[in-house]
């Protein structure tokens, strides 16, 4: 995962450097000679739409697509990859032969087997690459050779992925005709190697049952992954730190992680869980039985959000479904089942208390009572709940009990605060009712008094013969 982030940083840096200076674009070019403008190369002059010769439209494709390419943005020209002579007189009758002469180092279009070396000519050259980014990695070609893809390619299987299969743009999704001239930066959200696109990119081959037939491996990984919590986190919640294919399988050195490595792979993010698991007795048992550590319970591609019920229930036999505690811990004399149940009951009790407190606080808030302080207090309980759920990975109920007890206390306090707020709400209503009765009493008294003084005034006026009130 780190690798990916570093990469995107590098590409950004690279773009910045390129845009800020007229960087020399030619690989072997002397820094003293002024760089040849891309548009002025004889390559572009012939391979473009404005070309007067009758070249087939497909010959124009590279130039057309290269406009969007990250290499173009870095100031590279055709001959930087393909070699040849970029400054021939295009009107000469033998212009093509001159430009494409082997003596000028023309390399043309590489065969699939040659692609890694073709890209690696620059990308494995630390001295050259450091011009664009002093921190850039140059081990991709080397890593690729160790990968299943690289090994198969070396054996002559051209169906496997090479550099451009993943990094090239794929108009219309035709995988065989991956276009190498629209390579995007890793940070480009629409590019095929952006974290959100990686599963689709890998899936273009790996989900194609017909294409993958001869390799005898499943083709449902993408479909399963897209139902997983990691995919939800990555795509729906736009959390780019959530893993996609390459975060577990590596990218250039792509190979499936072994059974024993699994806890380490998952542990890069789920560190505490992996740590606890390795400390537990279960780790030894799993190792003896060659069971994939995390995978047994959580699956691999389809990793659904875990539930507390996994501690006590059995799976429904779906092969894609994961194992639950009770799938293995069967029998009345099994000691594991009660442990699972103890941890489950503790967590469930805390969960209930947290939910109960949340409901009370929501109720208080709906009644217009400010409860932000209680809500803050409750985060202590939700944190403890997360902690308890992590703590189960050592399968020691004592380790779960501590956060459960702490969280329960906090949740109960928050609950009490919420109830106090609701009680205050009803107190205000009772206060209002009593006050209104009091006010009504005052008003009645006043009205009675008004009538009394009015009557007296009238009586006085009647006796004093219409004179005004006495001075």
């Amino acid at each position, binding site marked *: 995962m780190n690798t990916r982030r570093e990469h995107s940083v590098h590409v950004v840096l690279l773009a910045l450097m390129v845009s800020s200076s007229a960087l020399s674009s030619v690989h072997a070019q002397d820094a003293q000679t002024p760089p040849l403008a891309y548009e002025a190369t004889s390559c572009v002059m012939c391979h473009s739409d404005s070309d007067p010769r009758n070249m087939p439209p497909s010959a124009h494709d590279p130039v057309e697509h290269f406009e969007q390419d990250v290499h173009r943005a870095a100031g590279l020209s055709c001959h930087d990859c393909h070699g040849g002579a970029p400054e021939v007189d295009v009107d000469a009758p033998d212009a093509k032969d001159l430009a494409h002469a082997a003596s000028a180092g023309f390399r043309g279009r590489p065969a699939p087997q040659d692609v890694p070396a073709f890209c690696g000519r620059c990308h494995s050259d630390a001295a050259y690459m450091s011009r664009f980014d002093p921190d850039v990695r140059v081990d991709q070609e080397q890593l690729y050779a160790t990968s299943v893809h690289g090994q198969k390619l070396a054996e002559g299987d051209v169906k496997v992925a090479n550099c451009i299969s993943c990094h090239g743009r794929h108009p219309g999704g035709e995988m065989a005709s991956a276009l190498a001239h629209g390579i995007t930066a890793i940070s480009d959200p629409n590019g095929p190697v952006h974290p959100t696109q990686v599963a689709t990119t890998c899936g273009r081959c790996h989900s194609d049952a017909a294409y993958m037939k001869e390799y005898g491996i499943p083709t449902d990984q993408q479909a399963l992954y897209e139902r997983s919590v990691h995919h939800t986190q990555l795509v729906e919640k736009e959390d780019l730190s959530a893993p996609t294919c390459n975060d577990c399988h590596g990218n250039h050195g792509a190979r499936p992680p072994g059974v024993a490595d699994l806890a380490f792979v998952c542990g890069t993010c789920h560190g505490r869980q992996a740590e606890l698991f390795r400390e537990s007795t279960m780790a030894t048992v799993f190792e003896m039985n060659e069971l994939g550590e995390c995978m047994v319970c959580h699956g691999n591609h389809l990793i659904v959000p875990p539930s507390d019920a996994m501690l006590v229930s059995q799976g429904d036999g779906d092969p894609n479904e994961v194992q639950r505690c009770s799938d293995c811990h069967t029998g009345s004399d099994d000691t594991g089942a009660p442990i699972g149940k103890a941890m489950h009951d503790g967590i469930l009790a805390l969960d209930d208390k947290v939910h109960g407190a949340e409901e009370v606080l929501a109720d208080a808030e*709906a*009644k*217009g009572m*400010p409860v932000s*302080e209680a809500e803050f207090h409750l985060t202590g309980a939700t944190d403890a709940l997360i902690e308890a759920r992590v703590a189960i990975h050592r399968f020691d109920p004592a380790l779960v009990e501590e956060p459960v007890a702490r969280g329960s206390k906090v949740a109960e306090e928050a609950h009490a605060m919420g109830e106090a707020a609701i009680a205050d709400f009803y107190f*205000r209503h009772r206060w209002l009712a009593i006050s209104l009765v009091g006010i009504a009493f005052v*008003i009645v008294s006043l009205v009675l008094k008004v009538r009394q003084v009015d009557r007296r*005034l009238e009586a006085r006026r009647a006796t004093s013969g219409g004179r005004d009130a006495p*001075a």
Partner: protein
Amino acid sequence: MEPRSSSPGPEPDRGSSWGARLGLDLFKSLAEHKTVPRHQHTIWYYMGGMALFLFMVQVATGILLLLYYRPSSTEAYESVQFIMTKVSWGWLVRSLHSISANLLVLVLLVHLGSVYFLRAYRKPREFTWVSGIALFFLFLGFGFSGYLLPWNELAYFATAVGTDIPGAMPGMGEFVVRLLRGGPDVTGATLSRFYGLHVAILPALTTVVMGLHLYQVQLHGMSTPKRARIKGPPMPFVPHFLLRDLVGWFAILGLLITIIVLAPTAPKGALFPFDFLFDPKHLLELGNKADPFSSAAAGIKPEWYFLFMYQALKMIPATVLGLEGEMLGVLAFGVGGLVLVLVPFLDRGASGLPPHPLARAAGSAIIAVGLALAALGTFCMVEMGSTLGIVGGVIAGLWIVVSVVLDRRRRGAESLLFPSLGLLTVLFIVAMTIVGRLS
């Protein structure tokens, strides 16, 4: 009194002695002599007293709030939150202060309207009117400055918009804006300034002007409308009118606490018409703390009594006859305010005649258009809605003009006041309902 008390004795009557020493005898005699005329419009006389009561509530709760409130941009919001949540009965004190402020403006508007329509401002009460209008403006100032003090999001942006309005004044606009805000923008400096205005400058001015106003009222007594149907001899102010006043005060106190307690959970419209006027639920909720660097929150609205101005300035075209529209709007409101002050001097019609129909029509039309604009502002209306609101306002205005013309043939022009106000209310409600559906 009997001669007994006038003879020089070693122990003169305690009450009169203390009264004499403290100078209370003057008030006693004033109270004894003050009378209130009785006719079909006597009810409007209670408005002034009611405003006085609400003002007293303001003073009392305002002083209490001062004990916990902190006037700085870093602490104001938190201190108001503290008052609302931690201080015992703090919720009541702060709610009373903000809700009664709104009721006060409402009562002042009714008071002003009744004096206008009954032409109580005519000679010799011109200065009662002028001081009253000055008080009205002072209370608007109280409302405007007080709105900012909790330093919450809505108030912040409403103040930013409100203090920007004088910027359209020709020549000195920018200076006035700087003067109001204590800087080019609404910041903590504005808060300090508004706080000083709210708790020192305005109260001092109000004390003086209110003294003047009450003195004028005392001096000239209550004005009897020329065409009033007298219902008997005037009643003494003490106790007959005062007791009746108290009934009103307690009634409005009951209304106040009912709004305060029920508003947070009342469904929309249940506290009609207050829901629509000043949205007590919204008013009592603090919302988010103001953040000068956040983008303006949705639903920014000034207080309801500034809505007509806010909406009018929003609707005025950018340029009118080659002049800047907003500047014209501001000028128009300035002139409008001046006309309001000068009403007693403009209306020089012989005081024996019935109210001038044109003056009445103008007053009614102002109310109608003001209500329509306020309705628009309340609902943040889209184009169709604003057309509806304008049409409603214009129809109401026209209806009033027509009925005034028709009314001239009949006698008892005052009888028009209630039906026209009633009709306006109906129109207002209808417009609100339509608009509420639309939005």
